[in-house]
């Protein structure tokens, strides 16, 4: 950790936040019939898996199907970046036709990823409705009229700052930090 890093969620808060989000979903979705979870690649899938686990821990009945959706081919900034975007795996082995979809990503910032996600999802059918769940909602820099239905934590930050969500599975620790990248 560098001197200018600021912890937004430590591992205890992280855990509590996920538990709270899971309970909020239960309030709204009851028994989760006709409901599926879609995590956006690459990093929304960790949160999707965690939410699924948490729901199952609360009640075994809440066994929701989870898919991973890659939005690379649907992005609007392809060829506007120096490097071509690298796709990740899409793994949605169910049809979302007439399903209630909980779309999950780790950070909501400009809204462009979510826009691509909504577009990409249509390749798997027409959902009855879509709700958005994010761990971190970065305010003030939305490019599109997109809002989350469930928010882990709101963060007020300037554009030059970055939010980094770390996961036990890959980085060894659950936490969220806000930092200013050097050389920028």
């Amino acid at each position, binding site marked *: 950790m560098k001197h200018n890093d600021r912890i937004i969620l430590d591992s205890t808060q992280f855990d509590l936040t996920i538990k709270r989000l899971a309970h909020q979903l239960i309030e709204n979705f009851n028994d989760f019939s006709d409901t599926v979870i879609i995590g956006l690649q690459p990093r929304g899938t960790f949160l999707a898996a965690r939410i699924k686990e948490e729901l199952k821990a609360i009640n075994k009945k809440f066994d929701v199907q989870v898919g991973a959706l*890659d939005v*690379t*081919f*649907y992005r609007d900034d*392809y*060829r506007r970046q120096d*490097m*071509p*975007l*690298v*796709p*990740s*795996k*899409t793994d949605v082995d169910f*049809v979302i036709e007439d399903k209630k979809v909980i779309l999950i990503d780790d950070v909501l910032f400009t809204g462009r990823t979510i826009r691509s996600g909504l*577009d*990409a999802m*249509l*390749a*798997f*059918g027409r959902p009855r409705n879509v709700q958005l769940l994010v761990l971190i909602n970065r305010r003030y820099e939305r490019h599109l009229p997109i809002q989350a239905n469930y928010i882990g934590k709101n963060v007020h930050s300037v554009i030059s700052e970055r939010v980094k969500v770390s996961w036990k599975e890959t980085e060894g620790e659950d936490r969220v930090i806000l930092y200013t990248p050097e050389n920028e």
Partner: protein
Amino acid sequence: MNKLSVNHLLGIRYLEKRDIELILETATHFKEVINRPIKKVPSLRDITIANLFFENSTRTKLSFEIAEKRLSADILNFSSANSSVKKGETLIDTVNNILSMKVDMVVMRHPNVGAAEFLAKHVKAKIVNAGDGAHEHPTQALLDAFSIQEKHGDLKEKNIVIVGDVLHSRVALSNIFCLQKLGANVKVCGPLTLIPKYISSLGVEVIIDLKEALNWCDVAMMLRIQLERQDLKLFPSLREYSMLYGLDKELLDSLDKRITIMHPGPINRGVEITSDVADSKQSIILEQVQNGVAVRMAALYLLAGRIE
């Protein structure tokens, strides 16, 4: 690295190993896309691609066309049979006229060796070689490598034999470059009149006897006898060719192991390969065709990433 080192796809010769690996890796994602209920992605919605076919083609042309449509590109189709080429227009004039309609990429098949390279030097669009004479056919080699990888995993140290009319085959040359770059061992098999003299300079050994070749390999690529390109009689008769170099079920079953059979199409059934072999479980001919769309989508997608 996730960027191609080249601006055009002219031949496998010009690609680095990591370019080939990048295209194959990207193709796995597109293969998933084309097996979805809705098979289309909007990646190239602002790109226009001209398909220029100065030589007959069914599979390659359709495959490119569907790959382009799945990527949401706009398409112009041109074939020389009913065009002003017949009135004496030069290649550059034809292409520049098409490009003035704001075309970003050109997919071209041409009977002359080096046509794609020539075009790349003289026009601004990104060029994809869809076959130039008996020279290269890069996307075919890429889809073949993809299909082998899907069936056998890593190509390193895999034994692959290319059987038949190597002399007239752009598929053979591109495949030799591609497979060697990926670390596979490549040999060719066929009557010496159909094997080019330069083959040893590519580090490719010739096996004369078909059964010996098949017993050596993990994968056999059967090539089509290209009667339309043969001015001379290079073998006495098709019947004699198929007796010596045709693959039938009996020969296939007599081998020590189960090998994979490939064919770039179109098949001359009963000449280089019999129907029961072409339609057998060991044949991956139709997988090749399906993979062709995914691989071409990957190549077009990655090349489009280099448009300024």
